[in-house]
């Protein structure tokens, strides 16, 4: 049995709590990185991070890219989509194919 975690600023992620996800409100990127490292070792299969936080702890997130669990997925916070999720898709594509062919 795996759990699902959400990391982000309180206002953006409060709603997830009601669905039964584990919510970790953070205020600073350092705190977020610390929590991420901690819960990645536990039984979390998916961890959602709001984009504004994810943008600041990229290195920490990239460290988990090649392992099967957890999947760390950026989601838009309440200030709107920053395009980080899309950028990551692009990055994967460039890594695999060499160019961005979907545009």
């Amino acid at each position, binding site marked *: 049995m795996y759990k699902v975690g959400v990391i982000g600023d309180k*206002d953006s992620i409060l709603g997830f*709590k*009601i669905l039964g996800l584990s919510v970790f409100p953070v205020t600073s990127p350092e705190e977020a990185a610390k929590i991420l490292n901690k819960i990645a070792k536990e039984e979390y*299969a998916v961890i959602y991070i709001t984009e504004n936080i994810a943008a600041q702890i990229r290195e920490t997130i990239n460290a988990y890219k090649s392992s099967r669990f957890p*999947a760390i*997925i950026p989601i838009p916070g*309440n200030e709107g989509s920053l395009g980080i999720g899309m950028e990551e898709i692009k990055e994967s594509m460039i890594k695999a194919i060499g160019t961005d062919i979907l545009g």
Partner: protein
Amino acid sequence: MALINVNPTRMELTRLKKRLLVARRGHKLLKDKRDELMKKFMDLIKKNKELRQKVEAMMMDVHSSFLIARSVMPSEIVEESLMFPKQKVFLQASIKHIMSVEVPELKFETTSSDDKDIYPYGFAHTSGELDSAITSLSKVMQYLLELAEVEKSVQLLAEEIEKTRRRVNALEYVLIPQLTDTIKYITMKLEENERGNLTRLMKVKDMMIEQSRRKSRS
């Protein structure tokens, strides 16, 4: 021309020929693997992109409805109402193999029996806006999970494709030319030795004939 540093002997030649055979076969297999991975990757990345666009749009709706909910109610009450969730989500994660790359397959289960009954608060002190925000959030959840699965698969596949491509290139542009060059070098060296041997034998034969002729004359 890059050569492997070996002794030009017949034994070394057979050994290298065997290695070349193995390298060629490995190269072909890896190339097939790369092509197939690429095909799978293209399907997945298209799906990933569509899903992400959809999820991001839906998330925006959720955030705006939460914003409205918060504006019509004091934030303490919102927080208080959301304090104790009624349901819990568990993930059933299994492993799927795509061309021997292990990717996760996620299924989620909730502890509550009815999806309509997710509101953990009484309706007396909360507004309808909060209800609709939560309803839309619970709708997004399924897509969010699918996104997680697809996006992780894409990342893992990208990694594997990069690795495979590097191997294919190393075989194609380094190992195989090196082996063919060395094999050619050894064959040529051996032929040269053969020719040297032949001339020497001919020379010896001439000398022996000369000698025997001189002996019979005397």
